[in-house]
């Protein structure tokens, strides 16, 4: 079936799919970002209902992408799944708690006799949007900074710190990455509302919020990417598979693969152009520029970790335990089967696009929410 394709090709392909899912998830996190702006943009109960209902028609997108991200890692890179989830236990558990509370909060918030009251569910949505995204940012940042794990000769692993992943919060790079992702999700959330809502009072608050979050994001993005490019990275020898530290490893990867530098620059340019379009030209389609720019930039920043013999999950406890796409992947057969299944991805994109278009033909207003007996 895949006779001319080597295992390494399949590993690269699947690292790309995982990276793409990461990029798509960050784009879809406009839902989480939007949730954190409920009280910033919505000053009356009607406005807040409008915001929740606008997000409520899309909330499953980021949730489903996260589940897919987990499934793809499990199937394609089971050792990474095993090491990271089983080791950085508290970080992943905290992320999961943040996502468990999302679906019910939409559905139960305005239902009569909902036991906790609507403020409680709004608080849960805020936690999901803020802490959830921040922690995912921290978890992703550990791909650059490493984790405290050891893998034995049977490929079974254990974590060497009793804080089980929470120690990642002590790294300034990890923290900055988390806050950067949070600011980006809020930018995307604001732009989604700008595009989706028909309510002038909210619109007036949108541009100021966008400006504030753009400044935070851009400052952190510059610092994080600068650190990524110039800090030490982890290289492994093609023949012996021995891992060693290499200065400016990520920069070297970009230089070795100029196409990745190009996609990163394209992504960043589109993102900046989208912000300019919204802030200076008041164009409501800016979400698409920033969104596609986000997907390109994040996908590239993740994919670059898997190329050029890089350890994508370095071990701080034992360098030779570091994970690479070669030592952590599924078998040739499983990756081949999964590659055939991945041909369904365009079909999935197709129907999501079709549903989004048919549901968003007109902009949402307070009147529309009030007239829908099914509203959240």
């Amino acid at each position: 079936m895949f006779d001319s394709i080597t295992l390494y090709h399949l590993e690269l392909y699947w690292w790309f799919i995982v990276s793409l899912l990461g990029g798509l998830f960050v784009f879809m996190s406009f839902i989480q970002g939007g949730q954190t702006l409920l009280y910033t943009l919505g000053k009356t109960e009607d406005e807040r209902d409008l915001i929740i209902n606008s997000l409520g028609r899309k909330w499953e997108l980021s949730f489903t992408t996260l589940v897919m991200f987990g499934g793809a890692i499990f199937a394609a890179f089971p050792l990474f799944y095993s090491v990271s989830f089983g080791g950085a236990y508290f970080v992943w558990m905290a992320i999961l708690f943040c996502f468990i509370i999302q679906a019910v909060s939409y559905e139960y918030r305005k239902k009569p006799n909902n036991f906790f009251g609507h403020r409680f569910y709004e608080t849960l949505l805020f936690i999901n949007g803020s802490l959830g995204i921040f922690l995912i940012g921290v978890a992703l940042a550990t791909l650059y900074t490493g984790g405290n794990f050891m893998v034995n000769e049977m490929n079974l692993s254990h974590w060497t710190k009793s804080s089980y992943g929470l120690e990642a919060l002590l790294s300034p790079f990890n923290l900055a990455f988390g806050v950067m992702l949070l600011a980006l999700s809020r930018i995307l959330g604001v732009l989604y509302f700008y595009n989706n809502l028909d309510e002038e009072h909210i619109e007036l608050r949108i541009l100021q919020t966008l400006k504030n979050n753009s400044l935070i994001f851009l400052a952190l993005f510059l610092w994080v990417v600068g650190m990524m490019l110039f800090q030490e990275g982890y290289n492994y020898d093609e023949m012996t598979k021995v891992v060693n530290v290499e200065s400016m490893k990520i920069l070297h990867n970009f230089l070795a693969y100029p196409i990745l530098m190009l996609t990163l620059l394209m992504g960043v340019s589109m993102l900046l152009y989208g912000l300019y379009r919204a802030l200076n030209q008041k164009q409501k389609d800016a979400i698409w520029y920033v969104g596609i720019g986000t997907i390109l930039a994040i996908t590239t920043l993740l994919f670059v970790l898997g190329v050029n013999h890089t350890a994508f999950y370095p071990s701080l406890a034992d360098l030779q335990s570091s994970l690479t796409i070669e030592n952590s992947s599924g078998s040739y057969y499983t990756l081949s089967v999964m590659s055939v299944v991945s041909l369904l991805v365009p079909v999935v994109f197709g129907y999501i696009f079709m549903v989004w278009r048919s549901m968003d033909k007109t902009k949402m207003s307070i009147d529309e929410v009030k007239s829908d007996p099914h509203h959240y």
Partner: protein
Amino acid sequence: MMEHSELLIDWSRAQFALTALYHWLFVPLTLGLTFIVAIMETIYVKTGDEWWKKTTKFWMGLLAINFAIGLATGIIMEFEFGTNWSNYSWIVGDIFGAPLAIEGLMAFFMESTFFAVMFFGWNKVSKKMHLTSTWLVAIGSNLSALWILVANGWMQHPVGMHFNPDTARNEMEDFWAVFFNPNAVSKFLHTVSSGYVLASLFVIGVSAWYLLKKREVLFAKRSIIVASSFGLLTSLFLLTSGDESAFNVAQQQPMKLAAMEGLYKGEERAGIIVIGLLDNTKVLGDEKAPFHFKVEIPNALSFLGYHSLSAFVPGIHDLVYGNEKHEIMSVAQKMEKGKLAVEALSDYKKYKKENNSQKAKEALVIFEQNQAYMGYGYLQKPEDAVPNVALTFYSFHTMVGLGTWFLVLFIMTLYFAMINEIEKKRWLLRLMLMTLPLGYVAQEAGWIVAEAGRQPWAIQDLLPVGMAASNVASTSVMITFWLFAILFTGLLIAEIKIMFTQINLGPKGGH
């Protein structure tokens, strides 16, 4: 290899059991109710009768309340394989991860994307597009169950793979063998049909409450006809698929079958216990009778398990201590071979590292000769191979007894609804209402049989739970266990209160 403390394993199992049992409170209703609302909406689209649209929307509203908490409790299940069973994730992830990933791509996206159209698209898309979306939600939910049960079926009966000593894990070699695993097929059919039965019980239970209150009479009667017909058909199918499941268990998990029937000493022409009280002082190996009393159907277990009235059904004693006459190897012998395999694998890795290819080859030969029993090499004593007999026995008999009662109930409700007498039969209405919680009991009991009944195995005969767990501190798991318990209980209370309030408001008031 890494083995873990009893405490860690107990907490890891407790957390998985807790989250799975909570999750399963909501999934079966979604599996069935999505089809029931799809049938109702089809009637609306075919007839153009607005009354059916209103009815569809009411049940859809209740479905949404249930669907949300089902999603909430579901996300943790996928990730727990990594967080709490990380050794498992590596040792079998090459096979087990694939169906989970396919479920996400093929089913979960479909289910959740069209969910938005189903709930918010009434005035945004055409009638046909809306109906298609409702059916796609039903199909997506059930496809989702299919892939999860393919994964679970593989844990009960691992097929289509080989052990790779170089990577120290099992690797898939035949995807179709995994997909068409007889255990997975029967498990899927049995599980989804049980969901349809539960949803039917839900609809007739709620409708009975309206009739007892003399409210929404036409709505309730029509709903009962749809749900009873659906429930009767699916109950009959449930019975057939249950028979197939039991046959598979007999072939693939004889210890589970013995525990399900409390059968300590194997018998030819073995009977099925209809009702029985186990003697809890009974210890494996003693001569005490396992039951204080029992009512039995002779020969039925032999027939169910082996399709022969005179077949020998091995008991727990035979399976643990062996039975020469019936060529059953003892667990002690299997443990001995398993330990040889574990040691040989370790030697193989060591010699490979030392570049001693001759020694590595010799170790590999020993490993391959004993590999089939490797899982037994991690057991401490032969009796560890026995699951909790009382829990398995009572759960199984609760499930079967209730399943039989549901079939009788559907026959009665359909009959009296068809002759338009149902609202006069208040005793039956009360029974319909009281049966609803029993539907949930039967669901949970079924999963207890499936999961507790195959202990100590995470993967049948291949990987015991003691080897499968993550190497984290037991206190960490204890903390998350209680956090889950508090969170899920709080959400469950909210769900029940909201559901009751919506039912009380009724089709006119709620939506």
